[in-house]
C-alpha cells in the first residue's frame, strides 16, 4: 500500500472515530458508537501494517498478543466501582506509549521519514519533544491518580513548603530543555526531557486530594489526547492528529464540567490542597448537640410506601457500601406499590464523570429513571420523599445560603424542598468538604443511622413484610 493510499485509510479511520463519539449522544446509539471506534481502529492498524515500511511482523504480533490479552482480561474482570482506577491506569499506558514511540522516532528517524539520525529537522524535534513531555507527564500523573484511587497511597493531598515554586521551576526548566532539544537534537537532552517530565507528572498530581480525582482523571484524559496529537504531528499522521484533538477536547470539557459541579476553578483544583484545613476546622467545630430526628428502617419504609413520589439521591458512599443492588430492590418494591421512583445524580457524585450512572445501570436501574441535576432539581418541591444515600455535600443548602461556607456557590440538589428528607448516614460526620450539613437539623429531615447497604436491606425487609 502506498503512502497516498494509507493517508486515505487514516482519513477514514479518523471519520470513524468522530462517529464513535457522536454515537454516545444517547444510550440507544452508544453501542453502535463503540463499534465505530473498533472499526476505525482496525482500519488504522491494518493500513499501517500494509505500508511498505513494515517488513517484519513478529514484534507486532507479539506486542498485540501480549497487550491484547492483558487488556482483555483486565477489562473483563474489573469491577465497576474500580472503573476510575482502571481508566487512570489506561491513561498512563497511553502516555508511556507516546514516550516510546517518540523514542523510537528519535533513534531511527529514517523509518518515519524524518531524515537521518542526528539530523532531524527542528520542527520535527519540537513536535517530538512536546509529545514526549506531555506523554511522560501523563504517565506518572496517571500513576499517582491510580494509586490514590486504588487506595495504595493516602488520598489526602500531599503538601510541602515551596511545592508550587518547585513545580514552577521544573516547568521553566522543562521549557528550556525543550528549546535546547529542538536546537541540537542531542540524545542527552532527550533523556533529560523524559526524566524531568516524569518528575513533574508526579509532583503535579501529589497535592491533589482523593475526592478531586474526577477532575484529575478527566484532565489526564485530555493530556493523553494532546500527547497523541503531538506524536501525530511528528509522524504527519492525520488519524493521530484528529483523534488526539478529539480526546484532548473531550477531556478538557469533562474537567470543566467537573469543576463547575464543585464550583471551583481548574487552577484551584490543580494547585491542590483542598479538604485539609477546612476539614480540620469543621471537625473541631462540629461538636454541637443540636437535636436531630432519627428514624428506623420501618419508619422509612412506611413513609416511602405512602408517598406518591420518591427521588433517590445516591452518592459515592452508596457505591462504597455496595448498596446499589439493595437500593434497586427497594425501589422495585416501591414501584410495585405505585410510587414514582426517580434517581437524581449530581455531576460529581462518583469518582469519575458519569460513574454513578454506570453503577446504577449495573444494578439494573433503567437509565430513563436517572436524571441529571438540571433536569430534576425543579421537581423536588413537588416530591414527597427525598432519599439521600451516601451523599452529603451535594445536598447542603449552605452552598446557596452561606457565603462563608467552603462549598458556597456549588450547584446542589435541592432535596430540602421535598416534603420529607430521609438521610442514610453512618454518623453525624461532615462530608468531604468538611462542612456541616444544616439539613440534618431540619424538622422535615429524618436521619437513618446505618450502613447504606444494611439500611436498604432493612427497608426492603420492612416493605415486603407489610405488603404480604
Amino acid at each position, binding site marked *: 500500500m502506498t503512502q497516498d493510499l494509507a493517508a486515505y485509510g487514516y482519513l477514514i479511520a479518523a471519520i470513524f472515530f468522530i462517529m464513535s463519539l457522536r454515537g454516545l449522544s444517547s444510550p440507544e446509539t452508544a453501542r453502535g458508537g463503540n463499534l465505530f471506534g473498533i472499526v476505525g481502529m482496525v482500519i488504522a492498524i491494518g493500513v499501517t501494517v500494509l505500508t511498505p515500511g513494515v517488513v517484519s511482523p513478529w514484534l507486532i504480533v507479539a506486542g498485540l498478543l501480549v497487550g*491484547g490479552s492483558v487488556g*482483555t482480561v483486565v477489562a473483563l474482570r474489573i469491577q465497576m466501582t474500580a472503573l476510575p482506577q482502571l481508566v487512570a491506569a489506561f491513561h498512563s499506558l497511553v502516555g508511556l506509549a507516546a514516550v516510546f514511540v517518540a523514542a523510537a522516532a528519535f533513534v531511527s528517524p529514517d523509518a518515519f521519514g524524518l531524515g537521518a539520525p542526528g539530523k532531524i529537522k527542528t520542527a520535527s524535534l519540537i513536535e517530538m519533544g512536546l509529545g514526549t513531555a506531555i506523554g511522560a507527564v501523563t504517565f506518572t500523573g496517571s500513576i499517582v491518580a491510580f494509586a490514590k484511587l486504588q487506595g495504595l497511597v493516602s488520598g489526602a493531598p500531599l503538601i510541602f513548603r515551596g511545592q508550587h515554586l518547585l513545580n514552577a521551576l521544573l516547568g521553566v526548566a522543562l521549557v528550556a530543555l525543550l528549546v535546547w532539544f529542538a536546537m541540537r537534537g542531542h540524545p542527552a537532552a532527550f533523556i533529560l526531557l523524559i526524566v524531568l517530565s516524569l518528575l513533574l507528572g508526579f509532583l503535579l498530581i501529589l497535592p491533589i486530594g482523593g475526592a478531586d480525582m474526577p477532575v484529575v482523571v478527566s484532565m489526564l484524559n485530555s493530556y493523553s489526547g494532546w500527547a497523541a496529537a503531538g506524536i501525530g504531528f511528528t509522524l504527519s499522521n492525520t488519524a493521530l492528529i484528529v483523534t488526539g484533538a478529539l*480526546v484532548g477536547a473531550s477531556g478538557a470539557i469533562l474537567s470543566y464540567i467537573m469543576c463547575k459541579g464543585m464550583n471551583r476553578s481548574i487552577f484551584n483544583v490543580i494547585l491542590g490542597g483542598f479538604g485539609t484545613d477546612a476539614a480540620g476546622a469543621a471537625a473541631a467545630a462540629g461538636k454541637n448537640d443540636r437535636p436531630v430526628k432519627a428514624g428506623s428502617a420501618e419508619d422509612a419504609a412506611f413513609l416511602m410506601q405512602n408517598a406518591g413520589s420518591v427521588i433517590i439521591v445516591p452518592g459515592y458512599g452508596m457505591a462504597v457500601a455496595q448498596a446499589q443492588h439493595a437500593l434497586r430492590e427497594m425501589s422495585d418494591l416501591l414501584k410495585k406499590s405505585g410510587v414514582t421512583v426517580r434517581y437524581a445524580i449530581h455531576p460529581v457524585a462518583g469518582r469519575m464523570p458519569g460513574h454513578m450512572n454506570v453503577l446504577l445501570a449495573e444494578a439494573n436501574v433503567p437509565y430513563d429513571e436517572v436524571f441529571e441535576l438540571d433536569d430534576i432539581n425543579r421537581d423536588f418541591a413537588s416530591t414527597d420523599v427525598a432519599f439521600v444515600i451516601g451523599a452529603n455535600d451535594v445536598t447542603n443548602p449552605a452552598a446557596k445560603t452561606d457565603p462563608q461556607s467552603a462549598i458556597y456557590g456549588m450547584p446542589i440538589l435541592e432535596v430540602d424542598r421535598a416534603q420529607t428528607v430521609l438521610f442514610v448516614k453512618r454518623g453525624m460526620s461532615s462530608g468531604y468538604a468538611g462542612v456541616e450539613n444544616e439539613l440534618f437539623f431540619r424538622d422535615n429531615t429524618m436521619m437513618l443511622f446505618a450502613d447504606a447497604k444494611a439500611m436498604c436491606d432493612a427497608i426492603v425487609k420492612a416493605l415486603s413484610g407489610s405488603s404480604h
Partner: protein
Amino acid sequence: MDDKLAGQAAKLASQAQELASNLRGVAQQITDQAALNVAGLPDGHMPFVALLTIFALACFVGYYVVWRVTPALHSPLMAVTNAVSSVIIVGALLAAGLKGLGAAQLFGAIAVALAAVNIFGGFIVTHRMLSMFKKKQPVKK
C-alpha cells in the same frame, strides 16, 4: 568523402545524444526542485500548516461532538476516548515492523503492547458499560 561525411554525421549524432541526456538531467533537476518547493518534505509528509489546520478543525469538531454526549454516558466516553487515543499504535507499528532488531524495534514493540492493552481493554470495558444501560421495562402488573 563519404567516410568524412559519415564521421561528421556520427559525431553530430553523439552530440545530439549528449544534449538530449543533458536536457533530461536538467528536466529531472527542475522536477526535483519543484517537488521540493511544493512540499520540501519526504514522501507522505504534509506541510506543518496543513497539519495545524487539521488539528485546529478537529479541536472544534471534538468540542461540539463532546458537548452533545449525554452526561449519563460520560464514563463510557472516557473509556472509549482512551481506547481511541491508543491509535498512537500506528507510530509503534512503524517502529516495530522495521527490519532487524535494534533500539527502535524494541521501543516500538513495547509501545505496541502498551497501546494494545488500551485498545482491547478500552473497547471491551466500554462495551461492558454500555450493555448495562437499559431502558425501563413496561411495568408488569
